[in-house]
């Protein structure tokens, strides 16, 4: 099933219809006319796009243009920011997530999030992974054990930590901490992963390891990644969305398949940004 996002005149539509090679363009999130404001000050407006199932969508653009604000509306983490107001519609699995009575906690178990700075809890590695499971009422030792093991294997951390699951997660290196955080999101078996510059606080080698891992996760998970690293976006993403500040308000300028967007951008701002002339 192919669906074309409503074309609005605020952004340029790249080539979406063909679909990227790895995934069918079935919308997982459908976002229409989204706007975010903090204390009546609009920081992002008029965003409409579809996030396709199983694909990696990269959000690119200079800092301060609302990419992270956009990302945090998808799991309604924006609720936690005092004075934040989100308008428009976000449809996820056929339900409008911005509705007042929408079950936010179950949304957050289906939509995992990885932050810029690795933020494992100050607990042991095992407890970090157990906590979200226990919260969901999973108490059985064997179930916990198998879920933890498979999550750690999935992020390639198992061999490194299997002998020291009971040491503090804070004793791991930065890259390991970040992979642990991804594993912590994965134990809940989400369908979507939101990543807010997951590699930018890491050294180049760890960053490469995490990036490889993200690539492995593609297909099984829908991934939305904010990144400042254009080369990384190009390497990883199937789709890309380019944000830019216009009159101090973040706007979506262009959205489409990654390769065409980088190679033959439709919009002059995109062209300037991806070629390194601006931003």
């Amino acid at each position: 099933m192919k669906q074309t996002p409503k074309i609005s005149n605020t952004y340029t539509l790249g080539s979406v219809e063909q679909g990227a090679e790895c995934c069918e363009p079935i919308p997982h999130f459908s976002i229409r006319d989204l706007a975010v404001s903090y204390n009546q000050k609009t920081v992002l407006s008029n965003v409409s796009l579809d996030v396709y199932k199983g694909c990696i969508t990269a959000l690119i653009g200079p800092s301060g243009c609302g990419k992270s604000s956009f990302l945090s509306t998808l799991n309604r983490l924006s609720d936690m920011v005092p004075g934040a107001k989100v308008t428009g519609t976000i449809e996820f699995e056929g339900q409008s997530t911005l509705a007042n009575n929408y079950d936010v906690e179950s949304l957050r178990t289906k939509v995992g999030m990885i932050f810029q700075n690795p933020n494992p809890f100050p607990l042991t590695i095992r407890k970090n992974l157990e906590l979200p499971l226990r919260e969901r009422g999973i108490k059985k030792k064997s179930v916990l054990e198998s879920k933890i093991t498979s999550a750690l294997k999935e992020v390639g951390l198992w061999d490194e930590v299997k002998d020291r699951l009971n040491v503090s997660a804070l004793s791991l290196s930065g890259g390991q901490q970040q992979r642990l955080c991804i594993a912590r999101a994965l134990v809940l078996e989400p369908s979507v992963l939101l990543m807010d510059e997951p590699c930018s606080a890491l050294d180049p080698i760890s960053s490469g390891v995490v990036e490889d891992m993200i690539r492995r996760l593609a297909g099984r998970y829908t991934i939305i990644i904010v990144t400042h690293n254009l080369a990384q976006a190009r390497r990883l993403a199937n789709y890309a969305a380019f944000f830019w500040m216009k009159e101090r308000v973040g706007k979506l300028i262009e959205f489409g398949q990654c390769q065409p967007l980088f190679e033959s951008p439709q919009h002059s701002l995109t062209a300037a940004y991806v070629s390194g002339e601006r931003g």
Partner: protein
Amino acid sequence: MINRLFTLLIWGLASCVLFAFGWLMVDVLVQGVPMLSLDFLTSDPIRSGRAGGIYPIIVSTFLILGVALTIVLPIGLGSAIWLCEFSNKDSKIVSTIRLSLDVLAGVPSIVFGLFGYAFFCGFLELGFSILSGGLTLACMMLPILIRTTEAGLAAVPNEWRRAGAALGLSRTTLLWRVLIPYAAPAITAGLLLSIGRATAETAALIFTSGYVDRMPESLADSGRSLAVHIYDLSMNVVGGDKAAYGSALVLIMFIVSINLLANALSESWMQKRVSRQ
């Protein structure tokens, strides 16, 4: 030249401070240590405390503290957690509450004494009793405890709250499993400091827990705290100075060890925070 003089001045001022401290400490030690014995700690005072020991006074002190802590711990910790984790920080009411707590933390203890005397002893008809004294102390400790606990919780990195929310954890779980364990040393340090202040307190207790120096039979009985004992011995009992210094030494040792413990806790906590980065 001027620079040299200034350096000299600073060293001079510092040594004056050290001298005053040394004088006070040596005085308390020289006069207090000879009094100190197991007998002093475990026997009743004789002739208004001129002779004998301070056993009932120590018991009363701990009873008063116990009453105060029983009241202040749940209310104080609960209020602090609410202020830090559940309140809307921008609201006018919350900032008014904060300011009121700051004011209350600075209110002279004698004013708490007045309130306790009028309200607990008089209005609630508890009379001069350990209960009245403990409740008055609780009022005094409350603002300090709330503010230190809140500061401890506020210092917990916000990213864990976001991580918890992103994992769909309830706030209860997050608080119980992550935030409170992490902030525990800071919260304990704050608690210890307020216990130290409460133990040192005299003015708020004279008119609430009373003067009686015998062993209290119940919480409704009057009981004399260590600080009140020192005051009474030095002001009202001729020849009580020696015993006063003995009691002062006991009181100082107790408070100093509590403060040292509090410092060690908060220092180790600071180190934990630094090493995390």
